[in-house]
């Protein structure tokens, strides 16, 4: 068993980063949207003006929460990236191999809901 695990380790060390592929990027964005959605449902978003984490060290920022302004800005960047991934001119869509809850349309909807919530409440 232990020898098999060592071989597995060798295999893992030779793998390419999945985030270099468009499918990997769609996958990553689905996780980011889920994290933001979970954060909202668990009350982990807070108001305030710190839009970048470098400011947090000098403020009374609580790292168990995310700053609303930062969330809003990040979501805008993610939506731009998703639009670009979805507008690929030829070939199969980037999310063709991904399960239903990771499809880019679902991610876009989740992100829009999160952004609307943040704009309404903070």
């Amino acid at each position: 068993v232990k020898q098999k695990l060592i071989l597995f380790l060798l295999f893992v060390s030779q793998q390419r980063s999945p985030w270099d592929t468009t499918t990997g990027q769609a996958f990553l964005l689905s996780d980011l949207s889920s994290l933001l959605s979970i954060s909202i449902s668990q009350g982990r978003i807070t108001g305030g003006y710190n839009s970048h984490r470098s400011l947090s060290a000098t403020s009374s920022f609580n790292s168990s929460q995310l700053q609303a302004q930062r969330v809003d800005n990040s979501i805008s960047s993610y939506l731009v990236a998703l639009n670009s991934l979805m507008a690929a001119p030829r070939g199969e869509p980037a999310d063709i191999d991904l399960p239903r809850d990771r499809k880019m349309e679902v991610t876009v909807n989740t992100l829009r809901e999160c952004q609307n919530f943040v704009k309404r409440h903070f």
Partner: protein
Amino acid sequence: MLLFCFLRFNLSLQQRVEFLSLAVSNSKSFSHSQRKSSSNYTVSTPSDHVAFTTDLDERLEVAKVQIEVQHALSQDMELDDQTKAEYLRRLNETLLDINELYHNFVKPNQLYEQTLHVLHVSGQYAPELVRETWAILIEEARLEAERAHVDEFERVSSAVVDIAKRFIGSENAFPVDVLTLMLQDFAFNHEKSSKAGWAPETMLMAGAEVEQIFDVLDDVFETKVGSNQSNQKD
């Protein structure tokens, strides 16, 4: 009392650790006023006393690793009886330092969870070792799920949460950035059938701060996706 812990008296490891725990408690409860009134006490200043207590505390932490290693080796089915008995005898004989424990017992027997305990207690920053160790622990959990025909994501998630809870806050044993990316990789590489948010949710359950997890994933986005957007605009 301390002599009992470290010399080769006929004591079990458990008894040595009990003596050491008592020594730590006594040292902590030994107030400054008692020190002044005690003529036999060799540690003279408050700072000496703090250093002495800290040293004892650290030795106790190492001794707890030794107990864990002894338990793991006693359960190891891959060791033959003679080798196992010899290991257990040496572990009972005296309290060892963290280097001896790692190089003579943990590393040769590939005790992965104990490797994390060693990294935690020693304060050693070893990024490659911690990455490899977690990769194997995650793969072990996946293999267990495969053998038991249960959901591999649930099994991996529960293994990570159980182990991480022991080392939360320890950058040496549970580096949030490394673990977040490993779970992301795992989710992507295993049939891509993971529920959206599985990796960050597992990290939250393990006790990692939401901002740390978000920082890691957002950094990947900025590096891999965001930079492509900028290049396209240029």
